[in-house]
């Protein structure tokens, strides 16, 4: 017997499926076609069996079921809990870039308006600089500064949102490395399933693509860490210890990601043990 979109074919017998479109979609998605015995269907025979009226009707009915399945699969994909988080992190990182870029440009412009302006010796963060620049006399300039500030505050609330969402979706990874960095790992890996399938050694160097390929191509020293460098225990570790901390952290993250994917809940015992192991890696004996 062979299953086709309109029903089953057994020898010369055509048995149309009579259920709803949804049930038919389910039936087709669950059917297993053995390709060694497979023969493409001849639409004229489907017509001769009275299942469709003509070519147009054949295509109409076929398209109906294909649309149904595609729309169903797309909806399924977007329902994945990690998909929205992925977009949120990417938006966050791009907003950072945009805000920095615009602030830099605004500072350069402000220097022209006010030649004595400098950021030296006054620990003038981007934020504080914006406050000063708002005193400019050029209306358009002031409006731009206000826009940058607004974007910065939107960025801050997005950051909290990302962090909170990561705590839910990646409870174990977030416990080890913080929600934000965990979310960034997820974004680079391309999803929770992908992150959970990565070996620890890959997680260790996610985000160090340039260094990794220069190592593979021309034998420069291999990168010790990628994104996980952003975690304090890696960048605060002494230079000799950093590689080791990164390695242990990545190993534990690989396990954490798998717990996150398969069990979808925090495992306090695992987290405690992992924290201890990472702590030990940073200690100089």
């Amino acid at each position: 017997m062979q299953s086709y979109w309109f029903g089953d074919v057994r020898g010369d017998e055509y048995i149309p499926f009579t259920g709803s479109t949804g049930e038919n979609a389910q039936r087709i998605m669950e059917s297993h076609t053995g390709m060694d015995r497979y023969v493409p269907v001849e639409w004229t025979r489907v017509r001769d069996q009275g299942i469709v009226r003509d070519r147009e009707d054949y295509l109409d009915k076929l398209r109906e079921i294909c649309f149904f399945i595609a729309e169903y699969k797309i909806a399924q994909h977007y329902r994945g809990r990690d998909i929205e988080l992925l977009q949120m992190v990417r938006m966050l990182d791009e907003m950072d870039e945009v805000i920095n870029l615009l602030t830099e440009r605004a500072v350069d412009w402000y220097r022209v308006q006010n030649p004595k302006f400098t950021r030296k010796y006054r620990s003038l963060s981007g934020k504080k600089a914006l406050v000063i620049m708002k005193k400019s006399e050029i209306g358009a300039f002031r409006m731009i500064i206000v826009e940058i500030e607004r974007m910065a505050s939107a960025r801050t609330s997005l950051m909290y949102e990302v962090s909170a969402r990561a705590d839910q979706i990646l409870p174990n990874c977030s416990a080890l490395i913080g929600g934000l960095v965990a979310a960034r790992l997820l974004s680079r890996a391309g999803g929770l399933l992908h992150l959970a399938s990565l070996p620890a050694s890959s997680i260790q160097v996610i985000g160090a693509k340039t260094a990794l390929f220069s190592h593979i191509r021309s034998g420069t020293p291999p990168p010790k860490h990628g994104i996980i460098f952003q975690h304090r225990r890696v960048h605060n570790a002494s230079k000799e210890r950093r590689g080791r901390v990164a390695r242990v952290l990545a190993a534990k993250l690989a396990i954490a990601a798998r717990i996150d994917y398969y069990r979808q809940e925090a495992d306090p015992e695992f987290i405690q043990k992992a924290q201890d192991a990472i702590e030990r890696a940073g200690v100089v004996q």
Partner: protein
Amino acid sequence: MIWIDRVLVSKGEPGVYGEKTLQGFRVWDPYRSKLSALYYLGKGVELEKEMKVLYLGAANGTTVSHVADYTGCVYAVEFAPRPMQDLLAVAKRRKNVIPIMADATRPETYAPFLEEVDLVYQDVASPEQAQIAIRNSIFLKKQGILIVVLKTRSIDVTRQPEDVLADVRQEFGDAGLVVDTMTWILPYHRDHAALVCRKM
């Protein structure tokens, strides 16, 4: 194929992706579509009204829309959800496009929808490109045409493109596919070769 002053066009409802029109025909840009590039290089295969086409790697449906303008029906296979959303929008207004959300490496998952086709066009960037073509040739009728756009870098970046192509030719031969022509689709697309094959 319809040419107006050496510009390849197709006849159908315009405005699919912001393409230009020429005397009411839709301009088919060789820089945006690898299949169009193949026609510009004189190595394309005439598309005809009664043809059934299997299109693997349909993406956003831009090239699909042109193929659909020329042919009887197009089975458009795409795996990724995002381009699929666009492809569905194209297919909604072109009644001869059958959108299939499936993985081209697994023909068994969409075999129930297909019939025998006259032409298989494949444009997927995957290390398994050659294998995908061979597996899908089951849907192709005898003497049917298979056009495969090979991104040689997708197969193995460390090897010379010519060596990769020679291997593919061998693999196709073993599977009963004879390579008629092989064209680098320069200057329109870099690192891409188009193989026009025939099923024996």
